[in-house]
């Protein structure tokens, strides 16, 4: 676990996997070390370090009690999908299988929301076995609810936006609602399964 300074008020902690990033962020969130605890793909950012915690050594000391563990009994969400995306055939070609098999593999995967970004409620879901290239030319508009793959990640567009991920299906799950106490359906740590509808 390496701790890198990010200017005078923040530090980035490197871990070895998205699962560890989620785990460390969840573990550290309650400690009051920083204003923002932001998991990334293989890092956790501590931004707005509390007085006394500024500097990498005190933070490293505070985090030294953490041990990577398997994801705890995080919230589980089931997301209904119609597997009719425009890039199903391209993903099938990348994986060397039939389009039906893409949907089957996707439904058979235990995903975990690793981190958010790109848009509120957009979660990078880890767990995909295999990788998918991004589109050479991003689409100018991907509809809200598009279920898409890129690299080792799966994501769902919370609202229409430009995007370069390969769209395999569509859901009407509500991913972002600021009127709720928990506005993001897929906050980091959430376990996700997809089911065909």
């Amino acid at each position, binding site marked *: 676990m390496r701790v*890198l300074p990010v200017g*005078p008020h923040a530090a980035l902690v490197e871990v070895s996997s998205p699962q560890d990033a989620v785990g460390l962020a969840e573990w550290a969130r309650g400690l009051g070390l920083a204003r923002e605890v932001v998991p990334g793909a293989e890092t956790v950012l501590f931004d707005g370090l509390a007085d006394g915690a500024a500097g990498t050594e005190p933070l490293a000391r505070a985090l030294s009690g953490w041990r990577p563990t398997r994801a705890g009994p995080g919230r589980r969400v089931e997301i209904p999908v119609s597997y009719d995306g425009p890039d199903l055939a391209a993903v099938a070609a990348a994986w060397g299988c039939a389009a039906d098999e893409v949907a089957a593999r996707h439904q058979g995967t235990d995903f975990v929301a690793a981190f958010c970004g790109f848009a509120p409620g957009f979660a990078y879901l880890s767990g995909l076995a295999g990788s998918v290239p991004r589109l050479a030319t991003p689409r100018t508009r991907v509809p809200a609810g598009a279920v898409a793959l890129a690299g080792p990640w799966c994501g769902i567009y919370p609202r229409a936006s430009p995007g370069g991920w390969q769209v395999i299906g569509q859901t009407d799950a509500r991913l972002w609602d600021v009127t709720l106490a928990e506005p993001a359906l897929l906050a980091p740590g959430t376990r996700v399964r997809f089911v065909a509808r």
Partner: protein
Amino acid sequence: MSLTVLAVGASVLVQDRGRAGWAHLGVPRAGALDAPAAGLANRLVGNGEDAACLEVLLGGLAMHTDRGRWCAVTGAVAGVRVDGRPQEFAAAVWWPAGTTLEVGTPGAGLRSYVAVAGGVAVDPVLGSRSTDTLAWVGPPPVTVGDVLPVGVAAGPPAALDTPRTPSAGPLRLAPGPRADRVDGDAVALLCGTSYTVSPDSDRIGLRLDGAPLPLARTDELPSEGMVLGAVQVPPDGRPVVFLADHPTTGGYPVVAVVDEADLWQCAQLRPGEPVRFTRSSTGRPTG
């Protein structure tokens, strides 16, 4: 009481100090881009630090008030008129009921701040009244015909306050977490390069034109959390200073961080204007 918006220029946004604590869900902090100017406007009219004011890009705002209130305009220096009569800038000004306040186009800088005693009282979203132009969380941009509610005035206007000198200095830099992705000393290279503000700059980032930074590595970096003031270098080598509406995670290396105390300048730099960096002497040692 309420304000009726009669005219807006390039952009008018409701802004307060922003929303903290939601970055892990992909929600930027937002908030007034020139935070010291917004804070001064609020103090002048007796508002608390959390009050919301209006961030006016390049002037052009006209509003009618149905009640008399103290108001103040700060930030980029612009003409202030009430029913056509010139008013003092960066001072508490009495805005009588039934009159129109106008904010003209600044001769230098970009963003002026209009505070009204009581604050703009639109409904907060996730604890803040700020409009975020990346995530579009918070109230929509202010448009002609809007009726903006105003809260209860908290205290008397504070007449004595000193606006900062408008002269901009170099932006102080501390090393970022991925400084090693630059071929050489990232801070020294940034300090030694002449940049100008790109016209693509906005509340998300100050984009810089100039000699590209030499990158030592161009392989992909896994996405990681980003701070306000992060200097990110995309593959084309032209740095971006991330401002209030920046994405909360990103995949390009952050090689330096601008001192938060200098970020107000980024709110006021016009496209084509020069930007200089200097090494921060206040940053703690690394390691």
